[in-house]
């Protein structure tokens, strides 16, 4: 198994932490993992992206141009990374703010209305966990149990009261994701 993922969106959407939780959970399952963020001024409210690799073998390049899965959460990311999905790969997106929907015919495309859904929850900060749930539904590579461990590790202790709502968000994402192509 070797899963190469790009997650891209706005800074503040929780793109980096979603990737980190995936990597952490992968590690809990004895996978080799890497998490390579874009860093620098981009982090401050601009676009942010992170490459996550989950693998059964030693990971070679953390820098990639082609991905098995692209999780794209704004228009800039759609424009930049739609073409980077390997033929037969997966593109998961949230239509909120998307003016040009994906055009590729040779990939599977999934939609998760995470922004809308997070608005209905206790806090909209659950956005990224809804997206993560959607990904897990499409590619059940990591167990829900390990995702919870990852959440615990990445949330500061003072926010641990938010663990249940985040867990709910992951489950919600699994429910609402739908394949559009």
């Amino acid at each position: 198994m070797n899963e190469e993922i790009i997650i891209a969106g706005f800074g503040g959407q929780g793109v980096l932490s979603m990737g980190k939780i995936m990597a952490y959970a992968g590690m809990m399952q004895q996978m080799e993992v890497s998490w390579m963020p874009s860093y620098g001024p981009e982090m401050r409210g601009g676009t942010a992206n992170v490459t996550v690799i989950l693998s059964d073998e030693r990971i070679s390049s953390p820098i990639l141009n082609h991905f098995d899965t692209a999780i794209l959460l704004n228009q800039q990311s759609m424009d930049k990374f739609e073409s980077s999905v390997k033929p037969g790969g997966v593109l998961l997106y949230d239509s909120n703010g998307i003016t040009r929907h994906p055009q590729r015919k040779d990939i599977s495309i999934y939609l998760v209305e995470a922004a809308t859904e997070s608005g209905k929850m206790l806090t909209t900060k659950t956005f990224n966990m809804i997206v993560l749930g959607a990904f897990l539904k499409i590619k059940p590579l990591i167990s829900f149990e390990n995702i919870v461990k990852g959440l615990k590790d990445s949330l500061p202790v003072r926010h641990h009261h938010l663990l249940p709502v985040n867990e709910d968000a992951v489950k919600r994402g699994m429910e609402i994701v739908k394949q559009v192509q």
Partner: protein
Amino acid sequence: MGEKKLMKGNEAFAEAAIRAGCDAYFGYPITPQSEVMEYLAAQRPHLRTGMVLLQAESEIAAINMVYGAAGTGKKVMTSSSSPGISLKQEGISYLAGSQLPCLILNVMRGGPGLGTIQPSQSDYFQATKGGGHGDYRMIVLAPASVQEMADFVRLGFELAFKYRNPVIMLSDGIIGQMMEKVELFDQMPRLTEFDQQWATTGKTTDRERNVITSLDLDPARHERHNLKLQEKYRKMSENEVRFESIECNDAEYLFVAYGSSARICQKSVKIARARGIRAGLIRPITLFPFPSEEIDRMAGKLKGILTVELSAGQMIEDVRLAVEGKVKVALHSRMGGMVPSPEEVFDALLKSFSI
């Protein structure tokens, strides 16, 4: 072995510093390595091991604090990124001239000047050929994973004390910022005994005073000092060469790359092999001393060598010196924070040798 964690390279380096029994860290913030001091500060190392942590007023002050602290015979370190490492060069020259052990991390970013905060490998010359003034060398360790960002702290201190010389870890923004699984070594004790031959522990009546200096105004004596240093560097070259060979046994084409470039090339080797091209990779782990002998040994049976660097081509000079014209050595170079993809590197191999 110890605990497994998911960490950034910079964090793994900092955690390893505490575990290696480091006595003091002095630094100044600069992207992309600020996590080192941030992580240390959050860990409160003075409570964990008694390690000193101090944010200095500048990189210049930081390296001079390292110089002072290293003089006490303790394990001390600093970290910075390219422009900050430039500022530290005078101090590094003093450390080398005074024969003081210490560990210096450079998480390289692009230059020249303020350049960019994105990753680069353009400080190869600076690290391997001297950097500051005078004839000196440092062992240069090039980590290519978060695991090595941790492991090389322990190795770096070992080598620094073995040779009484600064050791530099030459990393880059990719290795510093990426997270991987890391298996941390167990906590080591801090030093309790200090070398009375040279360390400033306070002059007792049973020994001569210890003076740490790089100054000698007597030319004949100073030449002897320099010859002694050169002898030390020769011993390092003899004993400390480290490299990794990947798919080299039957290789017709060889990538030579270190650090993050080597990671990219590992994938390029896979791509090449999948296309029936017998490619291999030599990853120098020490950049000084350089694995010249191994590359030379392979040169006779190779059709071409491609060095891959996030610079205008610096290590390629050492590769060319190693093979002395026996085989064509080409370069794939990206600069300014641009990083090639494994496919791009593979294409460069095809193009360079008309495959």
